[in-house]
Protein backbone atom coordinates (compact mmCIF):
# COMPACT_ATOMS: atom_id res chain seq x y z
CA UNK A 1 0.00 0.00 0.00
CA UNK A 2 3.05 2.30 0.10
CA UNK A 3 3.16 2.93 -3.61
CA UNK A 4 0.32 4.73 -5.41
CA UNK A 5 -2.41 2.62 -7.02
CA UNK A 6 -1.64 4.10 -10.44
CA UNK A 7 1.52 5.83 -11.61
CA UNK A 8 1.74 7.15 -15.13
CA UNK A 9 4.89 8.79 -16.36
CA UNK A 10 5.42 10.55 -19.69
CA UNK A 11 2.89 8.29 -21.37
CA UNK A 12 2.69 8.73 -25.13
CA UNK A 13 0.67 6.88 -27.74
CA UNK A 14 1.01 7.46 -31.44
CA UNK A 15 -1.24 5.78 -33.99
CA UNK A 16 0.11 5.46 -37.49
CA UNK A 17 -1.97 4.66 -40.53
CA UNK A 18 -1.55 4.59 -44.26
CA UNK A 19 -3.36 7.22 -46.27
CA UNK A 20 -4.15 7.35 -49.96
CA UNK A 21 -2.64 10.27 -51.81
CA UNK A 22 -4.97 11.57 -54.46
CA UNK A 23 -2.07 12.87 -56.55
CA UNK A 24 -0.30 9.48 -56.64
CA UNK A 25 -1.25 6.59 -58.85
CA UNK A 26 -2.81 3.40 -57.48
CA UNK A 27 0.47 1.47 -57.86
CA UNK A 28 2.31 3.95 -55.62
CA UNK A 29 -0.57 3.95 -53.15
CA UNK A 30 -0.52 0.15 -53.10
CA UNK A 31 3.21 -0.49 -52.79
CA UNK A 32 4.50 2.69 -51.22
CA UNK A 33 1.62 4.28 -49.33
CA UNK A 34 2.09 7.43 -47.28
CA UNK A 35 2.15 6.76 -43.55
CA UNK A 36 0.57 9.37 -41.32
CA UNK A 37 0.79 9.61 -37.57
CA UNK A 38 -1.58 10.86 -34.90
CA UNK A 39 -0.38 11.63 -31.38
CA UNK A 40 -3.35 10.52 -29.27
CA UNK A 41 -1.62 10.82 -25.89
CA UNK A 42 1.34 13.12 -25.48
CA UNK A 43 3.54 12.82 -22.39
CA UNK A 44 0.81 12.30 -19.80
CA UNK A 45 1.91 11.95 -16.17
CA UNK A 46 -0.13 11.56 -12.97
CA UNK A 47 -0.52 9.29 -10.01
CA UNK A 48 -3.56 8.02 -8.13
CA UNK A 49 -3.63 6.94 -4.48
CA UNK A 50 -5.54 3.91 -3.20
CA UNK A 51 -9.21 4.64 -2.61
CA UNK A 52 -9.28 7.86 -4.65
CA UNK A 53 -12.18 8.63 -6.99
CA UNK A 54 -10.78 10.20 -10.15
CA UNK A 55 -12.60 11.80 -13.06
CA UNK A 56 -10.51 11.73 -16.20
CA UNK A 57 -12.25 14.16 -18.50
CA UNK A 58 -11.73 15.87 -21.82
CA UNK A 59 -13.53 16.62 -25.08
CA UNK A 60 -13.97 13.96 -27.78
CA UNK A 61 -10.63 12.86 -29.19
CA UNK A 62 -8.71 14.24 -26.19
CA UNK A 63 -7.03 10.92 -25.44
CA UNK A 64 -9.11 9.71 -22.46
CA UNK A 65 -10.05 6.29 -23.79
CA UNK A 66 -6.59 5.71 -25.22
CA UNK A 67 -5.09 6.41 -21.80
CA UNK A 68 -7.55 4.14 -19.99
CA UNK A 69 -6.80 1.37 -22.49
CA UNK A 70 -3.07 1.74 -21.89
CA UNK A 71 -3.74 1.51 -18.15
CA UNK A 72 -5.52 -1.82 -18.63
CA UNK A 73 -2.89 -3.28 -20.96
CA UNK A 74 -5.17 -3.28 -24.02
CA UNK A 75 -3.02 -0.76 -25.88
CA UNK A 76 0.75 -0.63 -25.83
CA UNK A 77 2.26 2.83 -25.17
CA UNK A 78 4.61 4.23 -27.78
CA UNK A 79 6.75 5.54 -24.91
CA UNK A 80 6.50 6.26 -21.21
CA UNK A 81 5.65 3.97 -18.31
CA UNK A 82 2.54 2.82 -16.51
CA UNK A 83 2.52 1.07 -13.16
CA UNK A 84 -0.77 -0.23 -11.79
CA UNK A 85 -0.46 -1.74 -8.31
CA UNK A 86 3.23 -2.21 -9.09
CA UNK A 87 2.52 -4.11 -12.32
CA UNK A 88 3.38 -3.13 -15.90
CA UNK A 89 0.18 -3.62 -17.96
CA UNK A 90 2.11 -4.43 -21.14
CA UNK A 91 4.05 -7.27 -19.49
CA UNK A 92 1.64 -8.42 -16.77
CA UNK A 93 -1.73 -8.01 -18.51
CA UNK A 94 -3.24 -11.22 -17.13
CA UNK A 95 -1.85 -10.75 -13.61
CA UNK A 96 -3.14 -7.19 -13.61
CA UNK A 97 -6.58 -8.26 -14.86
CA UNK A 98 -7.10 -10.14 -11.57
CA UNK A 99 -6.60 -6.87 -9.67
CA UNK A 100 -8.67 -4.47 -11.77
CA UNK A 101 -12.20 -4.27 -13.09
CA UNK A 102 -13.18 -2.57 -16.32
CA UNK A 103 -16.49 -1.24 -17.58
CA UNK A 104 -16.81 0.11 -21.10
CA UNK A 105 -20.13 1.92 -21.21
CA UNK A 106 -20.62 1.36 -24.91
CA UNK A 107 -19.86 -2.38 -24.88
CA UNK A 108 -21.48 -5.19 -22.98
CA UNK A 109 -19.46 -7.98 -21.45
CA UNK A 110 -22.52 -9.97 -20.38
CA UNK A 111 -23.94 -13.05 -22.13
CA UNK A 112 -27.02 -11.69 -23.91
CA UNK A 113 -29.16 -14.82 -24.17
CA UNK A 114 -28.65 -16.24 -20.71
CA UNK A 115 -29.87 -15.11 -17.29
CA UNK A 116 -27.66 -12.59 -15.53
CA UNK A 117 -26.68 -15.16 -12.92
CA UNK A 118 -24.93 -17.17 -15.67
CA UNK A 119 -22.85 -14.15 -16.65
CA UNK A 120 -21.83 -13.57 -13.04
CA UNK A 121 -20.86 -17.24 -12.61
CA UNK A 122 -19.03 -17.09 -15.94
CA UNK A 123 -16.94 -14.13 -14.79
CA UNK A 124 -16.29 -15.80 -11.46
CA UNK A 125 -14.70 -18.72 -13.30
CA UNK A 126 -12.80 -16.33 -15.61
CA UNK A 127 -11.22 -14.82 -12.50
CA UNK A 128 -10.47 -18.29 -11.19
CA UNK A 129 -12.55 -17.93 -8.03
CA UNK A 130 -13.57 -21.11 -6.17
CA UNK A 131 -17.19 -22.14 -6.70
CA UNK A 132 -18.22 -21.34 -3.10
CA UNK A 133 -16.67 -17.87 -3.27
CA UNK A 134 -18.45 -17.19 -6.58
CA UNK A 135 -21.84 -18.04 -5.08
CA UNK A 136 -21.11 -15.96 -1.96
CA UNK A 137 -19.95 -12.99 -4.03
CA UNK A 138 -23.02 -13.21 -6.30
CA UNK A 139 -25.26 -12.99 -3.21
CA UNK A 140 -23.30 -9.93 -2.03
CA UNK A 141 -23.49 -8.22 -5.43
CA UNK A 142 -27.18 -9.00 -5.89
CA UNK A 143 -27.81 -7.36 -2.55
CA UNK A 144 -25.47 -4.39 -3.14
CA UNK A 145 -26.70 -3.65 -6.66
CA UNK A 146 -30.32 -4.67 -6.07
CA UNK A 147 -30.22 -7.19 -8.93
CA UNK A 148 -32.66 -9.64 -7.33
CA UNK A 149 -35.70 -8.65 -9.36
CA UNK A 150 -34.06 -9.42 -12.71
CA UNK A 151 -31.24 -11.87 -11.93
CA UNK A 152 -33.03 -14.71 -13.70
CA UNK A 153 -33.95 -12.72 -16.81
CA UNK A 154 -31.92 -13.00 -20.02
CA UNK A 155 -29.55 -10.03 -20.20
CA UNK A 156 -30.94 -8.86 -23.55
CA UNK A 157 -34.30 -8.25 -21.87
CA UNK A 158 -32.90 -5.88 -19.24
CA UNK A 159 -33.35 -2.10 -19.42
CA UNK A 160 -30.20 -0.05 -20.04
CA UNK A 161 -30.10 1.05 -16.40
CA UNK A 162 -30.44 -2.54 -15.16
CA UNK A 163 -27.81 -3.71 -17.62
CA UNK A 164 -25.30 -1.06 -16.55
CA UNK A 165 -25.77 -2.03 -12.89
CA UNK A 166 -25.22 -5.63 -13.93
CA UNK A 167 -22.11 -4.66 -15.96
CA UNK A 168 -20.56 -2.94 -12.96
CA UNK A 169 -21.53 -5.84 -10.70
CA UNK A 170 -19.89 -8.31 -13.13
CA UNK A 171 -16.72 -6.26 -13.18
CA UNK A 172 -16.60 -6.40 -9.36
CA UNK A 173 -17.06 -10.16 -9.01
CA UNK A 174 -13.38 -10.62 -8.13
CA UNK A 175 -13.23 -7.64 -5.72
CA UNK A 176 -10.82 -5.60 -7.82
CA UNK A 177 -8.66 -3.00 -6.10
CA UNK A 178 -9.19 -0.55 -8.96
CA UNK A 179 -12.18 -0.14 -11.25
CA UNK A 180 -11.73 1.72 -14.54
CA UNK A 181 -14.94 2.93 -16.11
CA UNK A 182 -15.14 4.40 -19.59
CA UNK A 183 -18.32 6.48 -19.81
CA UNK A 184 -20.37 4.24 -17.51
CA UNK A 185 -23.47 6.45 -17.43
CA UNK A 186 -23.76 7.01 -21.17
CA UNK A 187 -27.39 6.74 -22.27
CA UNK A 188 -28.81 6.34 -18.76
CA UNK A 189 -31.73 8.39 -17.47
CA UNK A 190 -31.25 10.65 -14.42
CA UNK A 191 -32.59 8.07 -11.96
CA UNK A 192 -30.38 5.27 -13.28
CA UNK A 193 -27.37 7.62 -13.32
CA UNK A 194 -27.87 8.55 -9.70
CA UNK A 195 -28.34 4.91 -8.69
CA UNK A 196 -25.10 3.94 -10.42
CA UNK A 197 -23.15 6.85 -8.90
CA UNK A 198 -24.43 5.97 -5.43
CA UNK A 199 -23.34 2.38 -5.92
CA UNK A 200 -19.88 3.40 -7.02
CA UNK A 201 -19.49 5.65 -3.98
CA UNK A 202 -20.65 2.77 -1.80
CA UNK A 203 -18.11 0.27 -3.17
CA UNK A 204 -15.43 2.95 -2.88
CA UNK A 205 -16.30 3.48 0.79
CA UNK A 206 -17.02 -0.12 1.77
CA UNK A 207 -14.31 -1.92 -0.23
CA UNK A 208 -11.84 0.98 -0.65
CA UNK A 209 -11.97 0.41 -4.41
CA UNK A 210 -10.10 3.06 -6.38
CA UNK A 211 -12.38 4.54 -9.03
CA UNK A 212 -11.00 5.95 -12.26
CA UNK A 213 -13.62 7.06 -14.70
CA UNK A 214 -13.94 8.94 -17.94
CA UNK A 215 -17.18 10.75 -18.57
CA UNK A 216 -18.76 13.62 -20.43
CA UNK A 217 -21.38 13.87 -17.74
CA UNK A 218 -20.74 16.70 -15.29
CA UNK A 219 -22.99 14.97 -12.77
CA UNK A 220 -20.61 12.00 -12.66
CA UNK A 221 -17.71 14.31 -11.93
CA UNK A 222 -19.47 16.51 -9.38
CA UNK A 223 -21.19 13.83 -7.38
CA UNK A 224 -18.74 10.99 -7.66
CA UNK A 225 -15.16 12.16 -8.02
CA UNK A 226 -13.01 13.94 -5.48
CA UNK A 227 -10.30 14.75 -8.00
CA UNK A 228 -10.46 15.70 -11.68
CA UNK A 229 -7.80 15.35 -14.33
CA UNK A 230 -8.54 17.29 -17.50
CA UNK A 231 -6.90 16.13 -20.71
CA UNK A 232 -7.00 17.79 -24.11
CA UNK A 233 -5.01 17.20 -27.30
CA UNK A 234 -3.37 14.27 -25.52
CA UNK A 235 -1.91 16.32 -22.64
CA UNK A 236 -3.01 16.84 -19.06
CA UNK A 237 -4.06 20.46 -18.74
CA UNK A 238 -5.47 20.43 -15.19
CA UNK A 239 -5.21 18.08 -12.25
CA UNK A 240 -6.95 19.34 -9.12
CA UNK A 241 -9.63 18.54 -6.52
CA UNK A 242 -13.07 18.62 -8.14
CA UNK A 243 -14.34 21.21 -5.64
CA UNK A 244 -11.53 23.57 -6.71
CA UNK A 245 -12.30 23.10 -10.38
CA UNK A 246 -15.16 25.61 -10.44
CA UNK A 247 -13.41 28.05 -8.10
CA UNK A 248 -10.09 28.06 -9.95
CA UNK A 249 -11.54 29.10 -13.23
CA UNK A 250 -14.06 31.67 -12.16
CA UNK A 251 -13.38 34.71 -14.23
CA UNK A 252 -17.04 35.11 -15.00
CA UNK A 253 -19.94 35.79 -12.65
CA UNK A 254 -23.55 35.33 -13.59
CA UNK A 255 -26.16 37.87 -12.42
CA UNK A 256 -29.90 37.22 -12.62
CA UNK A 257 -32.07 40.34 -12.65
CA UNK A 258 -35.76 39.72 -11.93
CA UNK A 259 -38.02 42.47 -13.33
CA UNK A 260 -40.04 44.64 -10.94
CA UNK A 261 -42.70 44.96 -13.64
CA UNK A 262 -41.59 43.70 -17.07
CA UNK A 263 -38.45 44.40 -19.04
CA UNK A 264 -39.39 46.13 -22.28
CA UNK A 265 -35.98 47.19 -23.63
CA UNK A 266 -32.57 45.60 -23.54
CA UNK A 267 -30.05 48.44 -23.80
CA UNK A 268 -26.40 48.03 -24.80
CA UNK A 269 -24.38 46.91 -21.76
CA UNK A 270 -21.12 48.47 -20.53
CA UNK A 271 -17.79 46.79 -21.44
CA UNK A 272 -17.22 43.54 -19.56
CA UNK A 273 -20.93 42.72 -19.25
CA UNK A 274 -22.97 40.78 -21.81
CA UNK A 275 -26.41 39.28 -22.00
CA UNK A 276 -26.69 35.52 -21.46
CA UNK A 277 -30.49 35.30 -21.67
CA UNK A 278 -33.19 37.91 -21.96
CA UNK A 279 -36.93 37.83 -21.47
CA UNK A 280 -39.59 40.12 -20.10
CA UNK A 281 -39.43 38.67 -16.58
CA UNK A 282 -35.76 37.91 -16.11
CA UNK A 283 -32.39 38.85 -17.58
CA UNK A 284 -29.20 36.92 -17.01
CA UNK A 285 -25.94 38.71 -17.68
CA UNK A 286 -22.34 37.48 -17.64
CA UNK A 287 -19.74 39.69 -15.99
CA UNK A 288 -16.10 39.32 -16.93
CA UNK A 289 -14.44 40.15 -13.61
CA UNK A 290 -11.11 40.79 -15.31
CA UNK A 291 -12.74 43.82 -16.97
CA UNK A 292 -15.24 45.01 -14.39
CA UNK A 293 -15.81 44.23 -10.72
CA UNK A 294 -19.08 42.70 -9.54
CA UNK A 295 -19.80 45.79 -7.47
CA UNK A 296 -19.28 48.14 -10.43
CA UNK A 297 -21.32 45.88 -12.67
CA UNK A 298 -24.21 45.86 -10.21
CA UNK A 299 -24.19 49.67 -9.94
CA UNK A 300 -24.29 49.99 -13.74
CA UNK A 301 -27.00 47.37 -14.12
CA UNK A 302 -29.19 49.00 -11.47
CA UNK A 303 -29.07 52.27 -13.38
CA UNK A 304 -30.26 50.48 -16.52
CA UNK A 305 -33.00 48.23 -15.11
CA UNK A 306 -35.71 48.38 -12.45
CA UNK A 307 -35.37 45.12 -10.58
CA UNK A 308 -37.27 43.29 -7.86
CA UNK A 309 -34.55 40.76 -7.07
CA UNK A 310 -30.88 40.06 -7.86
CA UNK A 311 -28.93 36.81 -7.74
CA UNK A 312 -25.15 36.66 -8.22
CA UNK A 313 -23.56 33.26 -8.73
CA UNK A 314 -20.60 31.43 -10.24
CA UNK A 315 -20.74 29.50 -13.48
CA UNK A 316 -21.84 25.88 -13.07
CA UNK A 317 -19.27 23.14 -13.47
CA UNK A 318 -20.37 22.34 -17.00
CA UNK A 319 -19.70 25.93 -18.08
CA UNK A 320 -16.32 25.90 -16.33
CA UNK A 321 -15.33 22.69 -18.08
CA UNK A 322 -16.47 24.07 -21.41
CA UNK A 323 -14.33 27.15 -20.83
CA UNK A 324 -11.32 24.98 -20.01
CA UNK A 325 -11.75 22.97 -23.20
CA UNK A 326 -12.30 26.09 -25.31
CA UNK A 327 -9.33 27.92 -23.84
CA UNK A 328 -7.10 24.96 -24.51
CA UNK A 329 -8.43 24.61 -28.06
CA UNK A 330 -7.66 28.28 -28.71
CA UNK A 331 -4.08 27.73 -27.60
CA UNK A 332 -3.59 24.58 -29.69
Amino acid at each position, binding site marked *: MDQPAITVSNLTKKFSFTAKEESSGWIKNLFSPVTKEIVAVDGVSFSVEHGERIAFIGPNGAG*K*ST*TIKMLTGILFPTSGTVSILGLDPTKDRKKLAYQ*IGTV*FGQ*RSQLLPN*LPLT*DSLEFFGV*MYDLPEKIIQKRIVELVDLFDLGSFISQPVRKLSLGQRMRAEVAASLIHKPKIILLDEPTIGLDVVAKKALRDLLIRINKEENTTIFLTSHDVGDIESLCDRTIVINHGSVIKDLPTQDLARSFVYEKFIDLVAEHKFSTFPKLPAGIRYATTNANKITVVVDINKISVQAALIKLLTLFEVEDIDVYNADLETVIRHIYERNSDRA
Partner: protein
Amino acid sequence: MSGIRIARKIISTLVKDRIHYPARLIIDTFAVIARCGLLLILYAHVFRINGGVINGTTFIFAAWSIFFYFSFSILRLRDISRAIMQDVQSGTIEMLLSKPFSYLWYRACWQIGSGIYSFITIFVVATIILGFWIGFPSTMLVGVFIPTFTLTFLCGSVLSLLVYSAVGLLAFWMEDVNPVFWVVDKAVMILGGSYLPVALFPPLMFKLALYSPFGATLFVSHTVSPSWQTTWTTLVGAQLFWIAIFGLVVYCMFERARRKVSINGG
Protein backbone atom coordinates in the same frame (compact mmCIF):
# COMPACT_ATOMS: atom_id res chain seq x y z
CA MET B 1 -5.84 -25.86 -14.70
CA SER B 2 -7.49 -22.47 -14.95
CA GLY B 3 -7.43 -22.69 -18.77
CA ILE B 4 -9.25 -26.03 -18.64
CA ARG B 5 -11.76 -24.68 -16.12
CA ILE B 6 -12.41 -21.67 -18.34
CA ALA B 7 -12.84 -23.97 -21.35
CA ARG B 8 -15.30 -26.18 -19.44
CA LYS B 9 -17.26 -23.16 -18.28
CA ILE B 10 -17.43 -21.55 -21.74
CA ILE B 11 -18.48 -24.80 -23.39
CA SER B 12 -21.06 -25.70 -20.73
CA THR B 13 -22.48 -22.15 -20.76
CA LEU B 14 -22.83 -22.17 -24.52
CA VAL B 15 -24.39 -25.62 -24.56
CA LYS B 16 -26.92 -24.31 -22.04
CA ASP B 17 -27.47 -21.32 -24.34
CA ARG B 18 -28.09 -23.61 -27.33
CA ILE B 19 -30.46 -25.80 -25.34
CA HIS B 20 -32.43 -22.64 -24.41
CA TYR B 21 -32.73 -21.83 -28.11
CA PRO B 22 -33.41 -25.07 -30.01
CA ALA B 23 -34.03 -23.22 -33.29
CA ARG B 24 -30.31 -23.32 -34.04
CA LEU B 25 -30.28 -27.13 -33.76
CA ILE B 26 -33.26 -27.42 -36.10
CA ILE B 27 -31.60 -25.11 -38.65
CA ASP B 28 -28.31 -27.04 -38.44
CA THR B 29 -30.15 -30.35 -38.88
CA PHE B 30 -31.98 -29.11 -41.95
CA ALA B 31 -28.75 -27.70 -43.38
CA VAL B 32 -27.01 -31.06 -43.05
CA ILE B 33 -29.97 -32.99 -44.44
CA ALA B 34 -30.26 -30.58 -47.37
CA ARG B 35 -26.57 -30.45 -48.27
CA CYS B 36 -25.30 -33.90 -47.34
CA GLY B 37 -28.52 -35.81 -48.03
CA LEU B 38 -28.97 -34.40 -51.53
CA LEU B 39 -25.31 -34.97 -52.36
CA LEU B 40 -25.59 -38.61 -51.22
CA ILE B 41 -28.68 -39.15 -53.35
CA LEU B 42 -26.81 -37.77 -56.38
CA TYR B 43 -23.72 -39.88 -55.67
CA ALA B 44 -25.86 -42.98 -55.21
CA HIS B 45 -27.26 -42.34 -58.67
CA VAL B 46 -23.82 -41.68 -60.23
CA PHE B 47 -22.39 -44.88 -58.71
CA ARG B 48 -25.43 -46.86 -59.88
CA ILE B 49 -25.06 -45.73 -63.50
CA ASN B 50 -21.32 -46.54 -63.36
CA GLY B 51 -21.86 -50.09 -62.26
CA GLY B 52 -21.35 -49.39 -58.54
CA VAL B 53 -17.58 -48.76 -58.66
CA ILE B 54 -15.72 -45.54 -59.56
CA ASN B 55 -11.94 -45.28 -59.32
CA GLY B 56 -11.95 -48.50 -57.32
CA THR B 57 -14.33 -47.04 -54.72
CA THR B 58 -17.90 -48.08 -53.94
CA PHE B 59 -20.74 -45.80 -52.87
CA ILE B 60 -20.66 -46.87 -49.23
CA PHE B 61 -17.06 -45.55 -48.79
CA ALA B 62 -17.81 -42.32 -50.68
CA ALA B 63 -21.01 -41.75 -48.68
CA TRP B 64 -19.36 -42.11 -45.26
CA SER B 65 -16.44 -39.95 -46.39
CA ILE B 66 -18.83 -37.14 -47.39
CA PHE B 67 -20.84 -37.61 -44.21
CA PHE B 68 -17.74 -37.22 -42.04
CA TYR B 69 -16.86 -34.05 -43.90
CA PHE B 70 -20.31 -32.57 -43.25
CA SER B 71 -20.33 -33.71 -39.62
CA PHE B 72 -17.05 -31.88 -39.06
CA SER B 73 -18.47 -28.76 -40.65
CA ILE B 74 -21.36 -28.68 -38.13
CA LEU B 75 -18.82 -27.68 -35.48
CA ARG B 76 -18.42 -24.39 -37.40
CA LEU B 77 -14.81 -24.04 -36.32
CA ARG B 78 -14.15 -21.94 -39.41
CA ASP B 79 -16.38 -19.22 -37.94
CA ILE B 80 -13.53 -18.31 -35.60
CA SER B 81 -12.17 -16.21 -38.50
CA ARG B 82 -15.29 -14.07 -38.61
CA ALA B 83 -15.49 -13.88 -34.81
CA ILE B 84 -11.94 -12.52 -34.60
CA MET B 85 -12.56 -10.16 -37.50
CA GLN B 86 -15.71 -8.84 -35.80
CA ASP B 87 -13.90 -8.44 -32.47
CA VAL B 88 -11.23 -6.37 -34.19
CA GLN B 89 -13.57 -4.29 -36.33
CA SER B 90 -16.16 -3.64 -33.61
CA GLY B 91 -13.57 -3.05 -30.88
CA THR B 92 -14.99 -5.86 -28.71
CA ILE B 93 -11.44 -7.14 -28.49
CA GLU B 94 -10.63 -4.38 -25.98
CA MET B 95 -13.08 -5.88 -23.52
CA LEU B 96 -11.70 -9.38 -23.99
CA LEU B 97 -8.09 -8.25 -23.69
CA SER B 98 -8.87 -6.71 -20.30
CA LYS B 99 -9.75 -10.15 -18.89
CA PRO B 100 -7.30 -12.58 -17.31
CA PHE B 101 -7.27 -15.21 -20.04
CA SER B 102 -5.71 -15.84 -23.42
CA TYR B 103 -7.86 -14.21 -26.07
CA LEU B 104 -7.25 -16.98 -28.63
CA TRP B 105 -7.97 -19.74 -26.11
CA TYR B 106 -11.20 -17.98 -25.21
CA ARG B 107 -12.21 -17.65 -28.87
CA ALA B 108 -11.35 -21.28 -29.62
CA CYS B 109 -13.37 -22.54 -26.65
CA TRP B 110 -16.24 -20.24 -27.64
CA GLN B 111 -16.22 -21.69 -31.15
CA ILE B 112 -16.20 -25.27 -29.88
CA GLY B 113 -18.95 -24.45 -27.37
CA SER B 114 -21.09 -22.87 -30.08
CA GLY B 115 -21.07 -25.96 -32.28
CA ILE B 116 -20.60 -28.96 -30.01
CA TYR B 117 -24.23 -29.43 -28.98
CA SER B 118 -25.47 -29.45 -32.59
CA PHE B 119 -22.52 -31.59 -33.64
CA ILE B 120 -23.05 -34.35 -31.06
CA THR B 121 -26.81 -34.46 -31.55
CA ILE B 122 -26.74 -34.49 -35.35
CA PHE B 123 -23.69 -36.77 -35.57
CA VAL B 124 -25.23 -39.47 -33.37
CA VAL B 125 -28.66 -39.33 -35.01
CA ALA B 126 -27.29 -39.11 -38.57
CA THR B 127 -24.80 -41.96 -37.98
CA ILE B 128 -27.67 -44.23 -36.92
CA ILE B 129 -29.82 -43.17 -39.90
CA LEU B 130 -26.96 -43.57 -42.39
CA GLY B 131 -26.00 -46.92 -40.82
CA PHE B 132 -29.54 -48.19 -41.32
CA TRP B 133 -29.75 -46.72 -44.84
CA ILE B 134 -26.50 -47.89 -46.42
CA GLY B 135 -24.81 -49.92 -43.69
CA PHE B 136 -21.25 -49.61 -42.35
CA PRO B 137 -18.19 -50.30 -44.52
CA SER B 138 -15.83 -52.99 -43.28
CA THR B 139 -13.13 -50.37 -42.57
CA MET B 140 -15.32 -48.86 -39.85
CA LEU B 141 -15.71 -52.15 -38.08
CA VAL B 142 -12.03 -52.76 -37.29
CA GLY B 143 -10.69 -52.02 -33.81
CA VAL B 144 -8.32 -49.27 -34.90
CA PHE B 145 -11.08 -47.20 -36.49
CA ILE B 146 -12.65 -45.44 -33.49
CA PRO B 147 -9.39 -44.41 -31.73
CA THR B 148 -7.74 -43.21 -34.96
CA PHE B 149 -10.93 -41.48 -36.09
CA THR B 150 -11.10 -39.67 -32.73
CA LEU B 151 -7.42 -38.75 -32.90
CA THR B 152 -7.55 -37.35 -36.42
CA PHE B 153 -10.81 -35.58 -35.61
CA LEU B 154 -9.19 -33.84 -32.62
CA CYS B 155 -6.04 -32.96 -34.58
CA GLY B 156 -8.18 -31.71 -37.47
CA SER B 157 -10.20 -29.54 -35.06
CA VAL B 158 -7.07 -27.97 -33.57
CA LEU B 159 -5.56 -27.40 -37.01
CA SER B 160 -8.80 -25.95 -38.33
CA LEU B 161 -8.99 -23.50 -35.41
CA LEU B 162 -5.38 -22.47 -36.03
CA VAL B 163 -5.73 -22.04 -39.80
CA TYR B 164 -8.91 -20.00 -39.47
CA SER B 165 -7.51 -18.02 -36.51
CA ALA B 166 -4.56 -17.00 -38.70
CA VAL B 167 -7.05 -15.78 -41.31
CA GLY B 168 -9.06 -13.90 -38.67
CA LEU B 169 -5.95 -12.26 -37.19
CA LEU B 170 -5.22 -10.72 -40.59
CA ALA B 171 -8.00 -8.28 -39.66
CA PHE B 172 -5.37 -6.40 -37.65
CA TRP B 173 -3.62 -5.57 -40.92
CA MET B 174 -6.39 -5.71 -43.53
CA GLU B 175 -9.67 -3.85 -43.76
CA ASP B 176 -11.55 -6.83 -45.14
CA VAL B 177 -10.43 -10.40 -44.52
CA ASN B 178 -13.34 -11.96 -46.40
CA PRO B 179 -11.47 -12.52 -49.70
CA VAL B 180 -8.69 -14.42 -47.86
CA PHE B 181 -11.27 -16.33 -45.86
CA TRP B 182 -13.07 -17.26 -49.06
CA VAL B 183 -9.90 -18.62 -50.73
CA VAL B 184 -8.84 -20.61 -47.64
CA ASP B 185 -12.34 -21.90 -47.02
CA LYS B 186 -12.79 -23.10 -50.58
CA ALA B 187 -9.37 -24.77 -50.47
CA VAL B 188 -10.41 -26.58 -47.28
CA MET B 189 -13.77 -27.57 -48.74
CA ILE B 190 -12.36 -28.90 -52.01
CA LEU B 191 -9.31 -30.65 -50.54
CA GLY B 192 -11.35 -31.88 -47.59
CA GLY B 193 -13.75 -33.75 -49.84
CA SER B 194 -16.83 -31.58 -49.73
CA TYR B 195 -17.59 -31.57 -53.45
CA LEU B 196 -15.99 -34.87 -54.37
CA PRO B 197 -14.95 -37.67 -51.99
CA VAL B 198 -11.14 -37.71 -51.66
CA ALA B 199 -11.06 -41.32 -52.90
CA LEU B 200 -12.15 -40.04 -56.31
CA PHE B 201 -9.51 -37.30 -56.55
CA PRO B 202 -7.03 -37.36 -59.46
CA PRO B 203 -3.43 -38.16 -58.27
CA LEU B 204 -2.19 -34.56 -58.04
CA MET B 205 -5.25 -33.38 -56.13
CA PHE B 206 -4.98 -36.40 -53.85
CA LYS B 207 -1.37 -35.45 -53.01
CA LEU B 208 -2.44 -31.86 -52.33
CA ALA B 209 -5.19 -33.18 -50.07
CA LEU B 210 -2.62 -35.23 -48.17
CA TYR B 211 0.19 -32.73 -47.83
CA SER B 212 -1.46 -29.30 -47.64
CA PRO B 213 -2.68 -27.89 -44.34
CA PHE B 214 -6.10 -27.32 -45.92
CA GLY B 215 -6.60 -30.97 -46.72
CA ALA B 216 -5.08 -32.00 -43.38
CA THR B 217 -7.86 -30.24 -41.43
CA LEU B 218 -10.28 -32.79 -42.84
CA PHE B 219 -8.49 -36.12 -42.68
CA VAL B 220 -11.64 -37.46 -41.01
CA SER B 221 -12.96 -37.89 -44.53
CA HIS B 222 -10.05 -40.34 -45.21
CA THR B 223 -10.82 -42.59 -42.25
CA VAL B 224 -13.21 -44.90 -44.12
CA SER B 225 -10.69 -45.51 -46.88
CA PRO B 226 -9.18 -49.07 -46.92
CA SER B 227 -5.68 -47.51 -46.96
CA TRP B 228 -6.35 -45.61 -43.69
CA GLN B 229 -5.20 -48.51 -41.51
CA THR B 230 -1.71 -48.31 -43.01
CA THR B 231 -1.46 -44.55 -43.60
CA TRP B 232 -3.05 -43.07 -40.47
CA THR B 233 0.28 -42.64 -38.66
CA THR B 234 1.68 -40.60 -41.58
CA LEU B 235 -1.48 -38.55 -41.89
CA VAL B 236 -1.82 -37.82 -38.17
CA GLY B 237 1.91 -36.97 -38.23
CA ALA B 238 1.22 -34.51 -41.06
CA GLN B 239 -1.57 -32.96 -38.99
CA LEU B 240 0.77 -32.59 -35.99
CA PHE B 241 3.38 -31.00 -38.26
CA TRP B 242 0.87 -28.45 -39.54
CA ILE B 243 -0.41 -27.83 -36.01
CA ALA B 244 3.15 -26.96 -34.94
CA ILE B 245 3.66 -24.66 -37.94
CA PHE B 246 0.31 -22.89 -37.66
CA GLY B 247 0.59 -22.75 -33.86
CA LEU B 248 3.81 -20.79 -34.28
CA VAL B 249 2.33 -18.61 -37.03
CA VAL B 250 -0.75 -17.77 -34.96
CA TYR B 251 1.34 -17.08 -31.84
CA CYS B 252 3.65 -14.70 -33.72
CA MET B 253 0.73 -13.02 -35.49
CA PHE B 254 -1.11 -12.47 -32.22
CA GLU B 255 1.94 -11.07 -30.45
CA ARG B 256 2.46 -8.60 -33.29
CA ALA B 257 -1.26 -7.91 -33.56
CA ARG B 258 -1.52 -6.98 -29.86
CA ARG B 259 0.89 -4.15 -30.48
CA LYS B 260 -1.26 -2.98 -33.36
CA VAL B 261 -4.54 -2.86 -31.46
CA SER B 262 -6.25 0.38 -32.28
CA ILE B 263 -9.84 0.96 -31.36
CA ASN B 264 -12.32 3.67 -32.23
CA GLY B 265 -12.34 6.27 -29.49
CA GLY B 266 -8.89 5.08 -28.49
